[in-house]
Structure formats: C-alpha cells, structure tokens
C-alpha cells in the first residue's frame, strides 16, 4: 500500500517560509493569494497502514508544532 503523509505547521505558529512565498507571489503578478503555508510531504510503501499514525507521532512529525494528514493511495482505505 502506498501512503502519503502531509505535514503542516500548526495553525498560529509563525511560518516565515510561508510568509516569504506569500510576499513573493504578487511580485510575479499573482494576485489574490493568501494564507500560504509550507510543509513537508513523505511518501512510503507500507505493509501495515495502521502503523502510520505511530510513525507520524514518533518520527515523521513533531506533534508539538506540526499537524499531519495521512492519505492512503492505490484505492486503499
């Protein structure tokens, strides 16, 4: 099973990278852009998808400052 984990900075935490990108886009002519946040993507093949949550809690994300979302691909659930 192929899984994808999206890791985002928790709401309310200063995200200077996101802010920098948000500032840069208008300079390139893109208007009406707001709320830009930069996170991380981890993709992996797993035999037991139920372990992913623990992987996130222990290693892939830092739950103090990050939220994570797990997507199962290949039509799995």
């Amino acid at each position: 099973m192929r899984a994808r984990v999206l890791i985002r900075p928790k709401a309310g935490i200063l995200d200077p990278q996101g802010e920098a990108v948000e500032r840069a886009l208008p300079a390139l002519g893109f208007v009406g852009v707001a709320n830009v946040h930069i996170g991380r993507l981890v993709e992996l093949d797993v035999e037991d998808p139920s372990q992913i949550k623990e992987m996130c809690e222990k290693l892939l994300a830092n739950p103090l400052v990050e939220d994570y979302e797990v997507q199962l691909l290949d039509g799995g659930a």
Partner: protein
Amino acid sequence: MKFGVLQFPGSCDELDALQAARKVGDAELIWHSERDLKGADAIVVPGGFSYGDYLRAGAIARFAPAMESVIDFANGGGLVLGICNGFQVLCEARLLPGALLSNANRRFTFRQVELEVADHNTHFTRACTAAAPGGADERLSIPAKHSWGRYYSSEETLKAIEENGQVVLRYAQGQNFNGSLADIAGVRNEAGNVFGLMPHPEHAVDELIGGSADGLEIFESMRLSVEGAYV
C-alpha cells in the same frame, strides 16, 4: 570529573566541545551507536547537523543507541548539556520542553550574542560571574550560529516553564535574532539536571580564539555540581 561528548554522523562542534570540556576536566567522545557512556559524570550533546538535519533537526539523532543511554542517565538525575543541535535533539527526545523552529529571518545566522543569566542557581550557571542585577558583568558573550533556533512552546508550556523558573538564559535586549519566544536562549527541565541552549559556550572558552571566555563558566558550573555532589 569526566564529560562524555556524543558524536553523531554529521556532528560538527563535538571536537570543539571536547576541547572546551578538557579545560575543566577529562572528556571523551561517545560514538552514536554505542550504549556505554564510559563512566561520564556529565553528558554533552554537541552542535552540528546530526544526520544532515534530515526530516527535522535532531529528529533522527534522538533514537540513536547512545541517546537511549543518555535518556536513562538523565532520568537518573545525571547532568546533560545540549548545545544548538544538541538542544534540538533533547527537545525531540522530550527531555526538554518546547521545540526549535526555523529562524524568523529564514537564514542561517552567525553572530556573537549577549545573554542574560535569568537564574544563577542551576547546575549550569552557578559559576557565571554575577554582579548586582543590571551590572555590566551579568551578561555572557557567546556566539550563536544556526538556522533552526527559534524557541517555541505552547502557551500552557510557556506559562509553566516561566513559573517553574526553568528559563535559564535569555537573549539580551536587541540580541534575539531568531525570534525565540520570550527571548528564551536556554531552558532546563523541571528537575534541573538537563539544560539546552542555542548559543555555543564551547566557542567562548578562550579570549584569543573566541574573544570571550564566558562559555567556560557553563562547563565550570557543571564541574562544581558534579564534584560538590550537586549541593
């Protein structure tokens, strides 16, 4: 007194820490895959880019066999000093509260900073020369060099650590370049035996090389505590 200085693949300042510790006592390197802490009386988790800072700074190092031993050592009351990447590792390992995020200015920054000692009664600051509050000697001049040094914790955690007096060092006025919450530069655990700071005391142990020997006081403090049996 013997210091044990951890060494991970990617550590950079471990030899500097070793050299600094040797001005105060004995010191030996401990390779990341070893569990034996070699009878160290205090552990230093050094600066650098352990495991390339992959995933998150310190995220992988915290699971090293040597760190498992350090966690046991800390839980048993042993003194542990985490410097820069070491501070990040200790936060990831949950030996210290909070987390280190990317600098507010988004860049690696190297600068000599002035730190205020918020608490002179810790195992890591007891030797810091204290003048009367507001006196010129109260500050430590120590270099900082990092891109992920912005200290952050949740509101409740911040309240708790402030109330418990766990903030040990703060950036002096105008010196907080990374955006750390409440100007926090160094923090200890509740029990007081584990301490982490972003600036590098091992690079301020010699007037000729560092322009300041204030950092030596932190190592000296640890020696006093170990030799005085933590009194």
